[in-house]
């Protein structure tokens, strides 16, 4: 420029140019002017833009070459930015998850409470149904009793086996043998009882059902399962029923062996009763005597007539062996008492 000026303006004007520059050197700026300018200027500045973050300033400055292009600094800034952006999001998400977990726990707690309440209600309902079933059974209202037992069996799977047997028993007492058989053979066929005595009860009731239906062989099979299973509470009644089945067989076959087997079974029944008490034994002998009474001398049974298959020893009436055996048992029983 200096060369251009000399060429442009000429040598004769160089002294004026230098003079102008010298004049500029002689002017001193007032020291307080800078502070005045800054103070007044700041009041007039437009609002500072906040949209641009410090990271963007760095990028802009680096693009213009004001600062060196950031290397690790940019990476660090990016990492900080990610943390700043993602951090609050993570915190928010964690908060939302915690809230959801709390809600879920509250719902689960309510569900547990509701289930416990339902369980308690179910227990109350079952107890009431059990009482009602037993009361109706005692009153001879077997259909109502059976209905109560069915309700319990359906409400509580754990009690299903026991109460289905009870329902089948009620059905048998109501003389609905087919229904009783269906319950015992079909409904609880695949179920296992926790107690063997429950299985023996099932076999005993099932024997009574087949007995009543006239299927004496099957009834005999079921009774003998109970009778030959060692000591159990149904053994006395099972041996008695075996004796009745042999008596009915004798009625058809007139085979003396059936009489002997009937007497032997009845003997086992009395023996089983005698294991408990003499009174029990005497009671069993009395029941045997009742069972050989003619039906026209008996009151109406639970089915509205005078016949009941499991109490039928009438075929042995007039059989001398049976009469002598029973008389002997009666004498011994009276003597022991």
């Amino acid at each position, binding site marked *: *420029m200096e060369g251009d000026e000399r060429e*442009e*303006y*000429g040598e*004769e*004007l160089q*002294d*004026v*140019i*230098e*003079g*102008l*520059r*010298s*004049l*500029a*050197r*002689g*002017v001193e*700026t*007032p020291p307080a*002017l*800078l502070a*005045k*300018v*800054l103070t*007044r*200027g*700041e009041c*007039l*500045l*437009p609002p*500072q*833009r*906040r*949209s*641009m973050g410090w990271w*963007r*300033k760095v990028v*802009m*400055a680096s693009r*213009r*070459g*004001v600062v060196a292009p950031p290397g690790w600094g940019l990476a660090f800034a990016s990492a900080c930015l990610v943390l700043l952006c993602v951090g609050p999001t993570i915190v928010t998400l964690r908060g939302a998850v915690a809230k959801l977990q709390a809600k879920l726990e509250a719902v689960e707690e309510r569900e547990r409470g509701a289930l416990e309440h339902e369980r308690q209600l179910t227990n109350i309902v079952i107890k009431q149904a059990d009482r009602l079933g037993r009361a109706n059974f005692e009153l001879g209202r077997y259909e109502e009793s059976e209905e109560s037992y069915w309700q319990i069996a359906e409400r509580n799977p754990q009690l299903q086996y026991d109460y289905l047997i009870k329902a089948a028993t009620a059905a048998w007492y109501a003389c609905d043998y087919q229904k009783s058989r269906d319950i015992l053979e079909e409904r609880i066929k695949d179920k296992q009882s926790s107690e063997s005595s429950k299985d023996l009860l099932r076999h005993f009731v099932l024997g009574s059902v087949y007995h009543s239906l006239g299927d004496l062989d099957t009834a005999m099979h079921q009774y003998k399962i109970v009778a030959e299973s060692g000591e159990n509470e149904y053994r006395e009644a099972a041996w008695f029923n075996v004796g009745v089945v042999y008596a009915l067989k004798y009625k058809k076959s007139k085979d003396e062996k059936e009489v002997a087997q009937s007497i032997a079974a009845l003997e086992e029944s009395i023996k089983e009763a005698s294991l408990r008490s003499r009174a029990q034994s005497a009671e069993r002998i009395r029941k045997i005597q009742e069972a050989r009474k003619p039906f026209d001398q008996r009151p109406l049974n639970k089915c509205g007539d005078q016949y009941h298959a499991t109490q039928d020893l009438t075929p042995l009436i007039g059989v001398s062996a049976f009469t002598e055996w029973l008389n002997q048992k009666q004498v011994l029983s009276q003597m022991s008492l």
Partner: protein
Amino acid sequence: MAEVHRECIDRQIQASTVAGDYRRTLELLARTYLDTVFHYCCRMLNGDRALAEDVTQQVFEEACKGIAEFRKESSAKTWLLAIAHNLALREMQTRGRRARLLDTHSAEVTAHVHSAPAPESESEVLSQEWLRRLHWALGQLEPAERSILMMRFGGERRGELPAAEIAQILGVSRAATYRQLKEALAQLKRIMIHGGG
């Protein structure tokens, strides 16, 4: 070296402006160009320091108002001197009383200068007396002529504007700027030698 420093400062100013950090922009502008603006104003206003101080403040106030619009199209110094040029001219036009006072004063100075011999050597040129005559002659120039000379030569080498940027401020071509500069310089020398006219 001065150009590199100036470009570096201008980048910082532009960066802070783009970033919206106007306070930083103002600080950079004031610390870098306050002297240049004040010198210009002082020379334009015939050495009236108080008035130059006021006008300089007005220059930076105007700059603050339009700071958000400042872009890279021109350098910061060009931008500030353009504002100073307009404000100084307006100040000189609106203050007639001050102009009359200057006329009276110039008459006294003219008499004094005419009594002095014309400079013949460099030592004389740079002498105090010669500078007083130059100062007086500068006040005799038309405001536009004085302004263009002060922008081009009034801030030492570091504070001077290239002719291209003066052309930008005045809104004329570069050649016209050179012509005006040459004419203003010739007129200034004529006044110094012949006492005006």
